[in-house]
């Protein structure tokens, strides 16, 4: 299963891309671990995970249609 992850703000400076694709990620806990491994610098920044445009805090099951996004602290206005 392929999951596309949208990356925003300062987080995209670490991933060097606004979108990354991972395979075999079944839930958001696994995603966090994979991100941590691939981009150690991410652990130093605060961010939230959104699945289908809703912020999730508990572990959330992903499917191949899930839209996942990494959101750093907001700064609108």
């Amino acid at each position, binding site marked *: 299963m392929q999951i596309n992850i949208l990356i*925003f*703000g*300062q987080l995209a400076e670490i991933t060097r891309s606004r979108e990354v694709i991972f395979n075999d990620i079944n839930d958001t806990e696994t995603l966090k671990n994979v991100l941590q491994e691939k981009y150690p610098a991410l652990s130093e920044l605060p961010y939230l995970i*959104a699945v289908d445009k809703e912020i999730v805090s508990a572990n959330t099951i992903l499917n191949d249609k899930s839209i996942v996004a990494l*959101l*750093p602290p*907001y*700064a*609108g*206005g």
Partner: protein
Amino acid sequence: MTEKKPKNIFIQGPIASSFIADSIQKHSSKTDIGGHSIFLGQVRADIIDGKKVSFIEYTSYEEMALEKMHIIREDVFAKYPLTCMHVYHSLGKIAAGEICLFVFTSSAHRKAAIDACEETVERLKAELPIWGKEMFEDDTHQWKENK
């Protein structure tokens, strides 16, 4: 049942004072309005560690922001007797001194317009996925964070 598509709030570049003036003018036909409240956000030339902010580059997760703004709009309309509400936020590069946010609420009486405007501003700053890269005069940058 058809779901209403959320209104777009984003404008590329700064919000011109002429746009704000036109927006006010358009309400002259709505004679049940007795009070307008307007909030304008302006980019501030903050000095951070001796370096001055020259502009902010705004980006957003637009689809999510529009959905969240739609919810804020519905909540605020449910809470206050408003005639109308307009919200615009800039994307892209906005120089210090330029307007990046325009919130405009109207009601029969002032209290609802003022309170609804304040609540909308507070909520959108906390709930909309929008980011601002503060660019300094020496081309370095830092990321803005709402307090």
